[in-house]
């Protein structure tokens, strides 16, 4: 057995390889993205990006119908999108093993909410594993396929930011062998969920959960670690690691499967403990079920529901106050918020939307950062695809003047994810809202992944590139303008015209993302500020470019300076400056 150090995401990919997975599909989403980026390195697995999580899961289900082991991965909010197939697949069960990895993001390091995906396991009546480190991520992924086939059920594997992006030591194992060859099999009463068939399957699902509950009571993934004294802790996943730090002497019941709960095992554990804690991140998911068993526990009455747990937060919850720090910072420090990159193609669009007084309904992507100062040019953000449909709804309730200000904005990847449906509705119901598609030829925020419009697959192969203009036209948009967002005047004129048009109108702002991997982004010589021309009006600071710094010491009122390491020569600042103070350093 070879030992190595892997992230949770790398370990899940390894586990899928070892389990003999043949097909894997996903839409990128932090913190789950790197699972498929690692799966694709195993040539035995057909790994692909799907336009959204629902499609990803349905692709995996198709492979499962063919008798192959299949994987779909997503972030927590992605499972909302994929929930439809999940619930019915629970009734269908599987042919080849089917595992869905869902990565939660407690603390919302890179998410719009911190929903607890364990609720989906209970809701859809499928088992869920929860690893506590990378080795368990590998092991539980393997195990999930065995459970999936043994109990005829899709299986959820829940990760989170600390598991997915944490690294720890993993023992590599050999892949399984002797899995059946895929092929067609007709089984309509199982695969075709007509009401009559589904009525037969529902009792099977209920029995399955009962069988799993009994079976899981004596499986090694649900284990008791004996301690000293009369304090016990029931925990799972990352919270187990914090329990070991904060309760070094307690008896611990570590749950590897969080749904269904091994009730008999919990009962016998509870009998040994005078004081029983349930330590879990986010919702009181385990706690409420144990209380319903008539066992009294200490849980969310002490530990926080909001945010991620840390050893310090768990300790502070118990003692009522945080430990004092040995060192204090004796000054107010400027914070360092994330920002659009120098040369980001979104910057000019949002600068002009702000100038035009637009009310911008946005959604999920790097462009959500436009909500932060100094751009402060995004007025709403709900979920993927909502930028356009929110604009449609908003326009319905506004008078003619305010209606003109409404602009729905989203990126190319988000447009293909769920935005197409929103635009279809906008045109179908003749909304006067303006739509801006920020086509930067990449799924930027998650790390410049490819999507159906980039012309490349996850594996890097050349493929069809979706033509966004043609899609808009096919949906019925007649007023389509394609602009280069580096040209501020062009951008302003296009937006102004589209906003004034009472019919559906789309502006496609096209410029390759600065992070794009294939050299598609244009980099020119950095700009410099001619100090004698800078009058300290600070107009250039309003575009929020990380490459423009303010030197308060220069001149009487200070002067702008371009950071030569960061500037990529996009010249957006040059167009903002009324005094022609920016020029190329070339």
């Amino acid at each position, binding site marked *: 057995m070879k*030992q190595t*150090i892997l992230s949770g995401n790398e370990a899940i990919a390894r586990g899928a390889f070892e389990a003999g997975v043949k097909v894997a599909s996903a839409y990128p989403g*932090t*913190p789950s993205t790197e699972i498929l980026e690692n799966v694709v390195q195993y040539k035995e697995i057909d790994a692909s990006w799907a336009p959204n999580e629902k499609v990803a899961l349905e692709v995996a289900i198709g492979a499962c119908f063919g008798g192959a082991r299949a994987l779909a991965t997503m972030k927590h909010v992605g499972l909302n999108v994929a929930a439809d197939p999940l619930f019915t697949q629970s009734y269908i069960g599987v042919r080849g093993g089917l595992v869905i990895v869902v990565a939660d993001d407690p603390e919302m*390091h*890179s998410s719009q909410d911190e929903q607890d995906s364990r609720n989906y396991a209970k809701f859809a009546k499928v088992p869920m594993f929860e690893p506590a480190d990378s080795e368990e991520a590998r092991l539980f992924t393997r195990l999930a396929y065995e459970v999936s086939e043994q109990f005829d059920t899709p299986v959820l594997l829940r990760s989170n*930011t*600390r598991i997915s*992006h*944490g*690294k*720890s*030591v993993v023992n590599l194992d050999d892949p399984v062998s002797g899995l059946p060859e895929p092929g067609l099999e007709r089984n309509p009463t199982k695969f075709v969920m007509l009401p009559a068939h589904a009525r037969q399957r529902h009792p099977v699902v209920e029995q399955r959960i009962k069988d799993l509950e009994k079976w899981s009571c004596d499986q090694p993934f649900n284990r008791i670690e004996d301690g000293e004294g009369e304090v016990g802790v029931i925990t799972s996943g*990352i919270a*187990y*690691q*914090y329990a*070991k*730090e904060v309760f*070094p002497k307690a008896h611990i019941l570590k749950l590897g499967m969080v749904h269904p709960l091994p009730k008999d095992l919990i009962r016998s554990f509870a009998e040994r403990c005078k004081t029983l804690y349930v330590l879990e991140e986010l919702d009181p998911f385990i706690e409420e079920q144990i209380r319903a068993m008539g066992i009294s526990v200490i849980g969310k009455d002490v530990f926080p529901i909001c945010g991620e747990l*840390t*050893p*310090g937060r768990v*300790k502070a919850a118990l003692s009522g106050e*945080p*430990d*004092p*720090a*040995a*060192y*204090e*910072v*004796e*000054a107010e*420090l*400027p*914070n*360092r*918020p*994330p*920002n*659009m*990159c120098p040369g980001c193609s979104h910057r000019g669009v949002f600068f002009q939307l702000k100038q035009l007084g637009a009310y911008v309904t946005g959604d999920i992507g*790097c462009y959500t*950062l436009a909500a932060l*100062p*100094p751009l402060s040019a995004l007025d709403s953000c709900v979920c993927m695809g909502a930028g356009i449909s929110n604009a449609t709804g908003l326009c319905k309730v506004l008078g003619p003047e305010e209606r003109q200000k409404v602009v729905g904005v989203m990126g190319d990847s988000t447009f293909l994810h769920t935005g197409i449906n929103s635009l279809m509705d906008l045109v179908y119901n003749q909304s006067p809202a303006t739509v801006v598609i920020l086509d930067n030829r990449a799924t930027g*925020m*998650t*790390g410049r992944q490819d999507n159906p419009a980039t012309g490349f697959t996850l594996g890097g192969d050349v493929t069809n590139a979706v033509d966004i203009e043609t899609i808009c036209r096919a949906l019925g948009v007649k007023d389509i303008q394609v602009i280069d967002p580096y040209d501020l005047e062009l951008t302003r004129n296009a937006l102004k015209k589209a906003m004034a048009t009472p019919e559906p109108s789309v502006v496609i702002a096209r410029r390759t993302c600065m992070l794009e991997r294939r050299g598609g982004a244009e980099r020119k010589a950095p700009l410099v500020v001619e100090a004698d021309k800078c009058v300290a009006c*600070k107009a250039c*600071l309003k575009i*929020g470019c*990380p490459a*423009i*710094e*303010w030197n*308060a010491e220069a001149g009487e009122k*200070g002067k702008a300076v371009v*950071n030569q390491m960061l500037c990529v020569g996009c010249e957006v600042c040059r167009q903002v400056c009324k005094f022609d103070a920016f020029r190329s350093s070339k």
Partner: protein
Amino acid sequence: MANQVTNIFLAGVGGQGTLLASEVLSEALMLAGHDVKKSEIHGMSQRGGSVTSHVRFGPKVYSPIIPEGEADILFGFELLETYRYLPWLKKGGKIIANDLKIIPAPVAMGQAEYLGDIPERLCAAVPGAKIVNGMELARQAGNLRTVNIALVGALSKELDIPEETWQQAMRNQVPERFLAENLKAFELGRQFKSPLT
């Protein structure tokens, strides 16, 4: 058991190469026979935001996050970020910090000030804090991007790991075409002697 774990807290700015530095560090610790865990945040915070990475090692490590106030070493890639995370350091802990300022957005916009005396503040809090001119070392190594590995070299003097193990870790983690300059940067960092101590 928990008190046998050593905690290294890395603080820097997105895009500085803290990720590769923590990879090399964790790899070297694993090769030296320790249980190792590391934790960091990708995604939104990478866009020029503040970035931290927790590396923990010992006979058995549980939490991948360092308990608040228990860092043995604060390993900073940028001055403001080093100072920001000073409260994570435990009493008697050590500081190794890159002598580099990266201006954050509020300062660039003229709405906040960047403290001018962070090296002095760090040395006042922790006598013997090592302030390393990482950019100069990287320049000597032939590529400014090796600054992260030069800093790992400076850190390596504080850890009981043989030099060959560090070199092996770099061979495992650094792409072949950048290996020579990174090995050089590491060596320069390892030989670095702080003028302030």
